[in-house]
């Protein structure tokens, strides 16, 4: 998401599930969509039925691969060379066959033509780092990563794309090292297969053709995860696949409401609607707006939509503090919690702080870090250092029961609860069918759900739990006071007189009101900076209007015929189903793809000039005139298509990232290779936080001499996330009763392991017991002339529930991506051996339901 926002301006799946059917090429990489998003395959299958080609890249031949026309094996850790090699192929091919590509799109809609500061240097010139690197701070000074600007402050361009300082030429130089042979030696992908992938996917670059990329956690969960997606973004821009039907970069969210929860500020660095959380330097709405959002663009043709952020911030504060938020008190901006400058508050950081005793209590809602957290052995120990822990869940999770966990994986012995001081509370929560509300899916559709049944026994909705908690905390502040008590006491909090809060009142608050009339607002275009409007999330302004609850709509009409279904539920922003769709038309507003037009300009024209404004199709992403008139003259009242970026163009060169404006290959924290095979001295992403150095306790790193095998983790169709919702259902556990480790026949032979044997997988962090699944679906890789094996384990299991088994996250390290700190679950080193015991020692009988006896 960090990457998509950096490139295009919004962190979300650009298209939507149904739209996959419009693709001519589907590249599934870093995702096992058939297994983990089976419903997506309804549309992948339909695309294939319509003649589409499915390409799948994965270390292992999966259920997704089984349906692919082209399967390319790639070792975990080879993502960036794989994509940069494709980009090199396309740039080379583009020069030989420009007619096969949409050059107008590249020239006019992307930053390919923008000129960069001549002092900017690439990693090939600086032994593995971009210009501006400070090795002591492990941070970049980004002053050279900037556009050259003219006297008016507008970025300089060279539309011939020939200037050596233009983004296109910099990119060309940067990827020139990633020739097929080098790529093959880094990724382990056979050269002939790689050539087929490049050729087939590049065909989606033709005008009127569409290629889509479907990715998930296999892409993101790396120390360079953000840069992986940047690679996809550049690839898709060169192929003119953004904004069109059947195109886009489609982040498959692993949970039905991940998009909704990030929209609503689940993450520490954003407020609702992706406004930045303020830090200690931000002292007023004015300084905040100027620092992050205002005055970033001088080009009158760029809409620079984020320039409106002040309206959204003030309206958010009005939603939270109501009448107490006034112009005089700067709309209670002072009440917002401020981050310490430069401090990270993501999952790993929080658990490190907990381990160090800096955090005393934790609310854990719908999450099970004792199974799902990286290096979960350390994280389970961190839980012991809490004074109190509240778990809110529909099941009794491993996290709620960390005080009776096994002392190690693959053993029956348990820790002594008497020695653990943490007081643990478990609040039974209502499941999704037991409460009313909405979820927002990957495709940004907000879908309203009615309550199907009443909650079981005394379980309560999350809303009820938070409402009661807030009221209790406010009661205590009233009685006892406290620091910044006003932040709690002044909060507007009215969700009805009943025991169960009125979820419609919440939804309406999120949409927002015209505070002068008391009416619900029709869209975020109406939001103001003067405190006369409120909106709990500007992106959702238009979701619940005077016309009703848009998310509850179930209209089935499809006027465009490309599957947009604009009256089914509601979609942010402003019910626009395919974002950046202004790039789906040429400079004159005519769709590139006449067969699948997303939008089209139908205004009247006289004398070769447009005289009236009318777009048809999807809600246009910026309703201004097209950039050119029918006669080819440029219009001064038009805007560039990527309205969420200050320069109005999609960024091939993204200066906002912590670890470089272009992706570069670095190895995972644990790698079987001794040096970076691309040929420079920087083996690990130079901008990541190295917890093994800053917090060495319980953060060991394995090396290839002891742990020569690459290991990765993944999910299976039959189980879900940390497993609580599925490991307790016998119909699912009978299909996938226990954790297993998949390995090649070659490795099994080397290690004397037979299919079905009990095996120990060991890393520097710990040991996992699992059953061997010996298969030709895994093959050894040849990396830089050396044979390297890879194995994989599903991570769903833990020590509670109907089906128990060793947690794979005992194996994974505490290290995260340089931008997002998402943990590197997908590539680390291990060794395997046949278990000396031959059985699951925690469950010698092998019966399902064993875990319940402990409870």
């Amino acid at each position, binding site marked *: 998401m960090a990457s998509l926002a950096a490139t295009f301006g919004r962190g979300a799946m650009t298209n939507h599930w149904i739209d996959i059917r419009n693709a001519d090429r589907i590249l599934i990489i870093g995702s096992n969509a*058939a*297994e983990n998003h*089976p*419903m997506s*395959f*309804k549309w992948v*299958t339909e695309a*294939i*039925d319509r003649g589409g080609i499915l390409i799948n890249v994965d270390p292992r*031949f*999966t*259920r*997704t*691969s*089984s*349906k692919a*026309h082209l*399967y390319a094996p790639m070792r975990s850790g080879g993502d960036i060379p794989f994509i940069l090699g494709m980009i090199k192929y396309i740039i080379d091919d583009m020069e030989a066959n420009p007619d096969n590509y949409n050059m107008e799109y590249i020239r006019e809609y992307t930053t390919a033509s923008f000129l960069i500061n001549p002092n900017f240097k690439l990693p090939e010139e600086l032994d593995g780092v971009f210009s501006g690197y400070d090795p002591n701070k492990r941070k970049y000074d980004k002053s050279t990563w900037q556009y050259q600007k003219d006297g008016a402050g507008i970025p300089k361009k060279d539309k011939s794309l020939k200037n050596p300082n233009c983004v296109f030429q910099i990119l060309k130089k940067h990827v020139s090292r990633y020739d097929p042979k080098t790529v093959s030696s880094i990724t382990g992908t056979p050269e002939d297969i790689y050539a087929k992938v490049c050729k087939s996917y590049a065909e989606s670059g033709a005008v009127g053709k569409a290629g889509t990329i479907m990715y998930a956690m296999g892409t993101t969960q790396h120390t360079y995860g953000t840069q992986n997606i940047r690679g996809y973004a550049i690839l898709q821009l060169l192929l003119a696949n953004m904004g069109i039907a059947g195109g886009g970069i489609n982040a498959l969210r692993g949970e039905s409401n991940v998009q909704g929860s990030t929209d609503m500020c689940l993450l520490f660095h954003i407020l609702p609607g992706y406004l930045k959380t303020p830090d200690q330097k931000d002292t007023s709405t004015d300084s905040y707006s100027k620092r992050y959002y205002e005055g970033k663009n001088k080009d009158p043709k760029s809409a620079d939509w984020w320039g409106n952020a002040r309206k959204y911030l003030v309206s958010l504060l009005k939603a939270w503090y109501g009448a107490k938020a006034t112009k005089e008190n700067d709309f209670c901006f002072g009440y917002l919690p401020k981050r310490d400058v430069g401090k990270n508050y993501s999952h790993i950081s929080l658990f490190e702080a907990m381990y160090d005793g800096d955090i005393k209590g934790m609310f854990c809602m719908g999450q099970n870090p004792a199974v799902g957290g990286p290096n979960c052995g350390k994280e389970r120990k961190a839980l012991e250092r809490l004074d109190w822990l509240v778990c809110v869940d529909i099941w009794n999770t491993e996290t709620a029961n960390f005080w009776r966990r096994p002392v190690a994986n693959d053993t029956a012995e348990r820790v002594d609860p008497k020695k653990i001081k943490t007081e643990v509370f478990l609040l039974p929560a209502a499941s999704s069918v037991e409460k009313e509300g909405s979820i927002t899916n990957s495709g940004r559709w907000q879908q309203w759900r009615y309550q199907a049944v009443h909650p079981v026994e005394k379980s309560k909705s999350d809303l009820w739990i938070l409402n009661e908690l807030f009221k209790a905390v406010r009661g205590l502040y009233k009685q006892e006071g406290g620091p910044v008590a006003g932040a709690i006491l002044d909060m507007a909090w009215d969700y009805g007189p009943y025991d169960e809060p009125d979820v419609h009142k919440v939804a309406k608050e999120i949409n927002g009101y015209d505070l002068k009339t008391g009416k619900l607002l029709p869209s975020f275009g109406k939001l103001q900076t003067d405190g006369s409007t409120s909106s709990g999330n500007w992106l959702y302004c238009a979701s619940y209007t005077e016309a009703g609850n848009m998310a509850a709509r179930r209209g089935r009409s499809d006027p465009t015929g490309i599957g947009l279904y604009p009256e089914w539920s509601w979609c942010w922003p402003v019910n626009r189903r395919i974002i950046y769709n202004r790039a789906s038309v040429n400079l004159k507003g005519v769709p590139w793809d006449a067969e699948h037009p997303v939008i089209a300009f139908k205004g009247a024209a006289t004398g070769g000039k447009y005289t009236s404004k009318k777009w048809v199709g999807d809600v246009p992403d910026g309703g201004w005139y097209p950039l050119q008139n029918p006669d080819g003259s440029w219009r001064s009242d038009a805007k560039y298509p990527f309205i969420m970026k200050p320069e109005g163009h999609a960024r091939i060169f993204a200066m906002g990232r912590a670890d470089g404006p272009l992706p570069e290959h670095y190895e995972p924290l644990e790698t079987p290779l001794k040096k970076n095979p691309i040929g420079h001295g920087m083996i690990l992403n130079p901008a990541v936080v190295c917890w093994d150095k800053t917090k060495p306790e319980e953060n060991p790193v394995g090396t290839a001499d002891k742990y020569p095998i690459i290991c990765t983790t993944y999910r*299976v*169709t*039959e189980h879900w996330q940390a497993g609580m919702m599925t490991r307790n259902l*016998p*119909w*699912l*556990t*009978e*299909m*996938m*009763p*226990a*954790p*297993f480790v998949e390995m090649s026949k070659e490795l099994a032979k080397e290690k004397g392991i037979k*299919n*079905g044997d009990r095996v120990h997988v060991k890393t520097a962090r710990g040991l996992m017991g699992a*059953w*061997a*699944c*010996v*298969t*030709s*679906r895994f093959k050894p890789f040849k990396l830089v002339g050396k044979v390297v094996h890879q194995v994989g384990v599903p991570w769903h299991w833990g020590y509670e529930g109907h089906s128990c088994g060793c947690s794979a996250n005992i194996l994974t390290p505490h290290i995260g991506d340089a931008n997002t700190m998402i943990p590197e679950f997908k590539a680390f080193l291990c060794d395997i051996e046949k278990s000396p015991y031959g059985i699951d020692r925690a469950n010698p009988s*092998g*019966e*399902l*339901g064993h875990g319940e006896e402990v409870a």
Partner: protein
Amino acid sequence: MTQKAMLIDTTKCMGCRGCQVACKQWNQLAAENTRFTGSYQNPPNLSASTWTLIKFIEPEGDPIRWLFRKEQCFHCGDPACVDACPTGALKKRPDGIVWIDQKICAGCKYCVHACPFQTPHTDHDTGTAKKCRMCIDRVDNGLKPACVTACPTGAVLYGAREDMLKVAKKRKAIVEKQTGASVRIYGETELGGLGVITVLADKASVYGLPEQPKKPLLLPRWLIGIVPGAVILYGMFKNFTGVREKAEKEEKAKEGQS
């Protein structure tokens, strides 16, 4: 009456097993106590409480393939089980559905042995034979079988047999053109035309099916002629005790719960 059929298109199946769970859910079949033995396929085979399952097949060779085939009763056009059944519990309906009337089944296992696909299995709790009944209760009320409704990709369809054959032939043409594989429409003519037609992208044997399924020669129908009374009486007795035993068991279970 229109002949109905199910179409299983292995070329569209991605092995998600939504069908396997939907079958258990609709028919309220017990989960089995399984172990991981080296394959995703679980439970390992059909049983009295598993009426459909996905077979996971990894044929040797290059390029690598992973094949999935939904296994279940084929609802044969000329069903050996019906011929073998001495009590008339096994019936073939005019629309093609072959089902076992649990009230009449004597538990003699003749069907279990007669089936060329080893589909029916004896339920040791009730003493009767069980297998897929094409969600008779759903289709008679205008619904599709549970597995069809659950399938995300349209790999499992249900409708007029003629239409299903048309879809199968269309798929054969597309897949053969896209992949060069030789596609077989299994069940078009086999055993009198099966009520479950399967689109296979290779030989039947690769998918664990007999290339030319045959009705067993030894059909015990003649036995019925020789000792009809004995068999029927035995059946009635078994049925009576079976039903009674089941009723008692349920009674006990209820007591145990309360």
